[in-house]
């Protein structure tokens, strides 16, 4: 080192979080004894404004050229202290952070002496690292003025509309033939009893008409490369076997199609043809031919059907489209828990046991029964309907794939179903078997009172089993009424299982493509559960809606709007600053062995001839800074900036100085 190292060490009390376990004053005194440390101080909250000012002032006053803050996790406050260091006139990459809270005082509360020793060791290691750090220049790159939204349920629709209205070109990708997602299957929405389609359809049409939105339905994201500001996304547009520009949605192909198979949109409760739209309000109103069930009879191509338009082509291939976007919003929604796994409730064994979503279709005017709720066994109107709440939620039975969390919508939609049954069929009595009624939202508790007044019956207890009378197909529900402390048996005409909301299987592929993580519940992990629930740890990728966790429609819409706001910030700013943490090759030492070439997952390492000798180089734009190449280079020619061999080795040496 040319210049003498003068490092300042700042020890944070974090109130009593740190200072309540270890002696912060003694730690500061210890830091003063370390090599290269010119100054050390402790303070109650180093992250506060006075704390940051203290760093700035100390840098100037003591002529420091490096800083170490011993406080919380660098994953929390590294950016804060880097900024303070930079403001003090020292390059921000000459800062290092010792984690003495999350990985020390919070986990060693009962062992203050040993925690103190660990804190000393960690501070010593970070001081050693700081002594070896080199100044780096953060790179600024332009941001593509476009965004990608994956999934076009209400979350994706809301996010796309917000982005488009902010003037951002938005690609909205949906794997199904129509946008609308789960919400389009709902009849009414709680607690206002708005018709779901009536409030959703206008938004769907807005999406189609918005000049800033490029809608790609029946399409899936196949590959993503690049980084914030510059993502290259490959999208597979699956073939509908219908030219979208020629199809006018007349439906004649559907009329003549002889094939009949269950319609996925109606959960198989009514049939569709091989040439179909999932539901009448579909956007775009373009027909799709399901090649798995098409028998290629060519009836749809005849004069009476699509003849003149020539929109149908059985040989139309899938198309791969590449788009460039600055930011990405994931809005891939959720699946419903496979309640068949709960054998005691007899779903798919007993005709008159249905799921909440099936009830939603049965009760919907656009559903298979035209809104007449009937028993699947005999088509008769039920006079008594049981609701099993928490069917797969708040249940620790992992063998059945049940979920320990609350799904947050089942109480309310079951209350809504209860209301609708009583409204449509006076005399019909709903019985709700519940653990707790969780009516937490705006006007939800009031809705609960309303259902009680209207005559809904509430039994606090879980349903242990359901049996069927083989003749009448009536169901006997056995449950413990925990308020009366006795077992109740009740004969009911029909039972609705309010099954849990579970992470969507299709999200897993997107998760891998975007290098996101799952939280313990299997939903996508947010950057911070409280303060940043719409961001992820991948810069430039945001979350909207149920893919992050169960929530109801108003919460989904708020979340999606928040994600859109967050995703538009880098785009409106026009540029982003990238961490200069990338590898560089010392071409003098490179032997051209090409070991690094095969290791790089991004193809950032290249082998070129320079002055008659093969040498490797690293493409800065492609390199993401994992350091895999650097740790394998046999001649030590690759330097992983900010995590160099010297820096890490100095930490290991300092580690050993503790004994």
């Amino acid at each position, binding site marked *: 080192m040319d210049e003498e190292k003068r490092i300042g060490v700042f020890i944070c009390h974090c109130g009593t979080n740190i200072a309540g376990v270890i002696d912060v004053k003694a730690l500061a005194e210890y830091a003063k004894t370390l090599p290269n440390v010119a100054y050390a101080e402790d303070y109650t909250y180093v992250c506060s404004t006075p704390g940051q000012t203290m760093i700035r002032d100390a840098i100037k006053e003591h002529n420091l050229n490096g800083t170490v803050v011993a406080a919380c*996790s*660098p*994953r*929390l406050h590294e950016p804060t202290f880097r900024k303070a260091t930079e403001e003090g006139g020292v390059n921000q990459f000459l800062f290092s952070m010792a*984690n003495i*809270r*999350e*990985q*020390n005082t*919070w*986990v*060693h*509360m*009962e*062992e203050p002496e*040993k*925690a103190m*020793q*660990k804190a000393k*060791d*960690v501070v010593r*290691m970070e001081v050693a690292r700081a002594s070896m750090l080199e100044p780096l220049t953060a790179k600024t790159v332009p941001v593509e003025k476009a965004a990608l939204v994956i999934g076009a349920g209400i979350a994706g629709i809301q996010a796309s509309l917000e982005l488009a209205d902010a003037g951002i070109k938005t690609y909205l990708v949906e794997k199904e033939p129509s946008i609308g997602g789960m919400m389009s299957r709902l009849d009414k929405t709680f607690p206002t009893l708005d018709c779901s389609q009536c409030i959703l359809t206008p938004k769907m049409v807005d999406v189609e008409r918005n000049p800033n939105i490029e809608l790609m339905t029946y399409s899936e994201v196949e590959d993503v490369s690049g980084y914030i500001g510059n993502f290259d996304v490959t999208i597979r547009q699956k073939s509908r076997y219908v030219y979208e520009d020629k199809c006018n949605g007349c439906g004649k192909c559907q009329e003549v199609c002889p094939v009949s198979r269950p319609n996925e949109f109606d959960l198989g409760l009514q049939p569709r043809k091989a040439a179909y739209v999932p539901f009448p309000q579909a956007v775009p109103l373009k027909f799709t031919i399901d090649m798995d069930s098409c028998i290629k009879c060519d009836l749809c191509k005849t004069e009476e059907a699509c003849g003149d338009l020539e929109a149908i082509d059985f040989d139309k291939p899938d198309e791969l489209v590449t788009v460039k976007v600055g930011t990405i919003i994931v809005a891939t929604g959720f699946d419903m828990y496979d309640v068949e796994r709960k054998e005691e409730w007899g779903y798919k064994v007993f005709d008159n046991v249905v799921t909440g979503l099936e009830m939603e279709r049965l009760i919907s005017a656009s559903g298979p029964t035209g809104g007449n709720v009937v028993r699947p066994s005999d088509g008769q109107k039920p006079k008594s309907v049981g609701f099993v709440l928490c069917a797969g939620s708040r249940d620790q039975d992992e063998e059945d794939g049940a979920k320990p969390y609350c799904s947050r919508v089942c109480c309310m939609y079951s209350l809504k179903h209860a209301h609708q049954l009583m409204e449509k069929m006076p005399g019909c009595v709903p019985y709700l078997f519940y653990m707790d009624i969780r009516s937490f939202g705006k006007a939800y508790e009031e809705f609960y009172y309303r259902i009680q007044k209207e005559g809904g019956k509430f039994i606090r207890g879980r349903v242990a089993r359901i049996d069927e009378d083989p003749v009448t197909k009536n169901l006997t529900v056995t449950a413990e009424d925990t308020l009366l402390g006795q077992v109740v048996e009740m004969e009911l005409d029909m039972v609705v299982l309010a099954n849990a909301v579970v992470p969507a299987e299709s999200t897993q592929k997107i998760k*891998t493509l975007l*290098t996101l*993580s*799952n*939280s*313990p519940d299997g939903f996508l*992990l947010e950057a911070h559960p409280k303060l940043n629930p719409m961001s992820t*740890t*991948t810069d430039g990728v945001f979350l909207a809606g149920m893919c992050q966790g169960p929530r109801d429609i108003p919460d989904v819409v708020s979340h999606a709007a928040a994600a859109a706001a967050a995703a538009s910030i880098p785009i409106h700013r026009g540029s982003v600053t990238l961490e200069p*943490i990338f590898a560089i090759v010392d071409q003098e030492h490179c032997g051209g062995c090409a070991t690094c070439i095969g*290791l790089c*997952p*991004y193809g950032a390492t290249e082998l070129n001839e320079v002055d008659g000798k093969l040498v490797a180089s690293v493409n800065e734009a492609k390199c*993401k*800074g*994992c*350091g*895999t190449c*650097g*740790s*394998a280079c046999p001649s030590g020619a690759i330097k*992983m900036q900010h*995590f160099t*061999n010297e820096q*890490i*080795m100095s*930490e*290991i*040496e300092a*580690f*050993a100085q*503790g*004994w």
Partner: protein
Amino acid sequence: MAEEFEPNILGILCNWCTYAGADLAGTSRMQYPTNVRVIRIMCTGRLDPAFVLKALSVGADGVLVSGCHIGDCHYLAGNFKSRRRVALLRKLIEEYGYDRERLRMTMISASEGAIWADVVQDMVNTIKKLGPNPLKQVGAAGQAGVVADDEF
């Protein structure tokens, strides 16, 4: 020595999964032994075998490498490479006279704070059974054994 042997273990954790998981253990106030000192790297792919050898040569009683689950790597495949390196290193350190259990690699996600606490506890128990780094026992035993083979 009357005092109980307290191992000094070096933890080398990736930023995105295990380091975040270890932070979560902290946020959740899970208590575990103090013996691990952590170095944060962006990806376990950065694990140069020399780091492990260096740590053992300066007297670390154990080295705990931990990264993302397979398929969860923030850099797609860094953990595949480190997993292979660690597998080979475990054989290599045996050649130097270290028990292979002194080096361990685990995969702990950002949401698995409880598993991190368990892994640390288990690693500490294992190293306590193995005793101090043989290098540190040299002085007491009066000879270096395989660790300082003069032939090399």
